[in-house]
């Protein structure tokens, strides 16, 4: 299992409102995570590259500019190109519910709207980065076998 949870918090695009991102970054820090904060005005490319080099488990993007339907798909696409789709992408900001649904359908794992308690974000990250999420079928079977063998004894 991985030791520390590492999260990248980024502000892609042109909006300059970073209060939210900073609040989230501080909350994750206080929850014992290592937060790589990239600052304002990042391109999707630099965020994905940073996430790969920093080997984070989660990318959290704050988008308040209305460009979420461009930014999130682009980040997902770039992650795919880097074969890094195991990094979970989550986000927050001003995103209409219909768009949220669309984004979650294409692979954004979770979106947190305004007013979300930070503890909810912390809990979500903790429960989704702990291993193993679902044991594969083969693993399950071998566990069963072992159990039945023991019983026979």
């Amino acid at each position, binding site marked *: 299992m991985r030791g520390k949870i590492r999260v990248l918090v980024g502000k892609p695009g042109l909006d300059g409102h970073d209060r939210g991102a900073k609040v989230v970054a501080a909350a994750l820090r206080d929850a014992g995570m290592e937060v790589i904060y990239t*600052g304002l005005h990042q391109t999707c490319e630099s965020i994905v590259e940073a996430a790969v080099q920093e080997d984070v488990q989660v990318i959290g993007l704050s988008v308040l500019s209305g460009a979420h339907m461009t930014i999130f798909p682009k980040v997902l696409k770039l992650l795919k190109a880097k074969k890094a789709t195991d990094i979970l992408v989550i986000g927050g900001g001003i995103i209409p519910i219909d768009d949220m649904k669309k984004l979650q359908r294409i692979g954004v794992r979770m979106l947190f709207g305004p007013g979300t308690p930070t503890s909810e974000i912390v809990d979500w990250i903790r429960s989704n980065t702990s291993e193993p999420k679902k044991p594969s079928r083969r693993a399950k079977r071998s566990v069963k076998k072992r159990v039945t063998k023991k019983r026979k004894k």
Partner: protein
Amino acid sequence: MERFRAVCMNDIKSLLKGDKRVIARIVSAVEDGKGEDLLESIFPHTGRSFHIGITGPPGAGKSTLVTSIAKRLLGCDKKVGIIAVDPSSPFSGGALLGDRIRMTDLALKDNIFIRSMASRGSMGGLAQATKDVALVLDAAGMDYVLIETIGVGQVELDIAQVCDTTIVVLVPESGDSIQAMKAGLLEIADIMVVNKGDREGSERLVSELKFAFEMREKEAGWDLPILKTTAIKDEGIEELVLALESHEKHLTKTGKLEQERKKKLLLRMHELIERRIRVHLQKKVIPENEIKQLMESMYKRQLNPYRVAKKIARRIIRGSR
């Protein structure tokens, strides 16, 4: 690549080729203290890159300086690795790593790898695993590894044990010549930089530092440069890079590089032995009931901790033979 997959030996080939995703994975393993086998197999491929340390108080402009130095080195077709350390909270264990903010335009280039590290409880200005991470970047074919410490005070000097050249960065607000005469931080400098040179008092600090260093015993053949930079405007960086080059030349020419690196390896070996002994000690070498008795007798002043420690240490050393 599957998440949580253990890093395996096949990855070493990709590491040596400089695959960034693999470098990142191996660095994580090393950071989490699970990389000893890996480090063993990496070690023969290290010793080729030159390590430069940048240290100084918080907000002195270390990250910005590192960025400007890295840009120049990249311009000379060099491969550059950067390790930027920021402090972990002693309370939550968490950390906010913000050194990358100043380096964003760099990170996209091919010949660079940047990694933020949290200090994770280490007190010397670096993380415990920083030395090992530097080895990983060394093996990955970096020509230069730049290591930036957390913002330091006077005694966080670990950096000098990792790097071939140590740059100490100060700002005009750092203090006067008396500060410069004190023991500690300034003693490890191979190059001194007064950053934020456009601020009032920078000239004064430079001349006071020159005065203070004149009184010190000099290292043979190396005249410690005291430079003024304004990193944010890219001023004085040319001179700094030249100074770095000439220090590197000085080290190779005088044979000091080899000498110092040998010393550092010995030191590292001792550290690793110490670490193993510490782990051994935690495994209850002294039985629980004996500990209780000892505590009681020491509290009642029938025994003293000095004598007890001597006895127990003797017992452990004898036992291990």
